[in-house]
């Protein structure tokens, strides 16, 4: 039990994620979390005005059930399968974040400087969350997939488009962390 309560090493976690992908393919589906954002638009009635969302969303209900399970899984893991532990980050990462004004680095999953309600109700905080979320939603549909669809499923099935998309993920991520973050923090 003690081993389960501690953070899981990468060499356990990675293969388990591959199993999730494999089971979904075995069930006749695929592993792609961002499709749910499209499905939610369709459920909201976006298909009446925008043809892109004019599809039978009921065929994608199974994926929303995966999401519900994932939320419960997050709840179980966080409240029942974890003991309070600091994230074992590289001291250089912590030092760098301290310089940008982040305190208590790694003491929770998300930085309070961005995700606490105090931050959410500041101009900077709400802009980071909404612009960040917007870019994820826009970019993932433009690229036709996210980390699960391209990085895990697409690379596992040796598809070139997914490799190009993953290279794109890193171009964007590196620009954000190395060029834009020093400006906004």
């Amino acid at each position, binding site marked *: 039990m003690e081993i389960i309560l501690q*953070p899981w090493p*990468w*060499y356990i*976690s*990675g293969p*388990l*994620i*591959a199993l999730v992908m494999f089971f*979904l*393919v*075995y*069930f006749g589906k695929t592993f792609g979390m961002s499709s*749910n954002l*499209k499905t*939610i*638009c369709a459920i909201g009635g*976006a298909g009446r005005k*925008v043809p892109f*969302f004019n599809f039978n969303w009921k065929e994608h209900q199974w994926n929303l059930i995966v999401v*519900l*399970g994932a*939320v*419960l*899984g*997050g709840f179980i*893991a966080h409240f029942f*399968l974890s003991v309070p532990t600091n994230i074992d980050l*590289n001291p250089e*990462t912590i030092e760098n974040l301290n310089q940008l004004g982040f305190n208590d680095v790694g003491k929770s*999953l998300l*930085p309070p400087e961005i995700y*606490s309600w105090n931050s959410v109700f500041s101009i900077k905080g*709400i802009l*980071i*969350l909404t612009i*960040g*979320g*917007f*870019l*994820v939603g*826009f*970019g*993932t549909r*433009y690229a036709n997939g*996210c980390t*699960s669809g391209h990085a*895990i499923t697409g*690379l*596992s*099935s040796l598809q070139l488009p997914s490799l190009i998309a993953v*290279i*794109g*993920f*890193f*171009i*964007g*991520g*590196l620009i*954000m*962390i190395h060029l834009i973050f020093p400006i906004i923090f």
Partner: protein
Amino acid sequence: MKYFKFFTIGILFGIVLVKSEAVSWYRIYEMFRFESFHMYGIIGTAVATGIVLLLITKQYKFKNIEGSQMRVPLKDKGFLRYIIGGSIFGLGWAMSGACPGPMYILVGTGAFSVLIVIMAAIFGTYLYGVLKDKLPH
């Protein structure tokens, strides 16, 4: 009942992503600074395991639960949409620290402010649908 298996897989996915800390903003930040092997180890072993599983599947012609050949849907050919869309996604991933899987999972850990990121992502998806035909693909 037919959805129970999807619910179970979702639970496994949520647990693994929390226990591996892949849902942590800090881990994503550290990854893009190349200061830890952790995230590369997770993605690398996931892909390596995935490649082996899918090659075995192909070799032995495994059938899926519906009785037809098990296979992964193929992505359309192309370059621009993947590199541009991917880069836009990467900007948002690094900024919010959450990609579409972890977004939902974080809600389960009690981080309700992530709901704002989810709503913004739904709006981003909607706007892509509106602008789709005007964008290079």
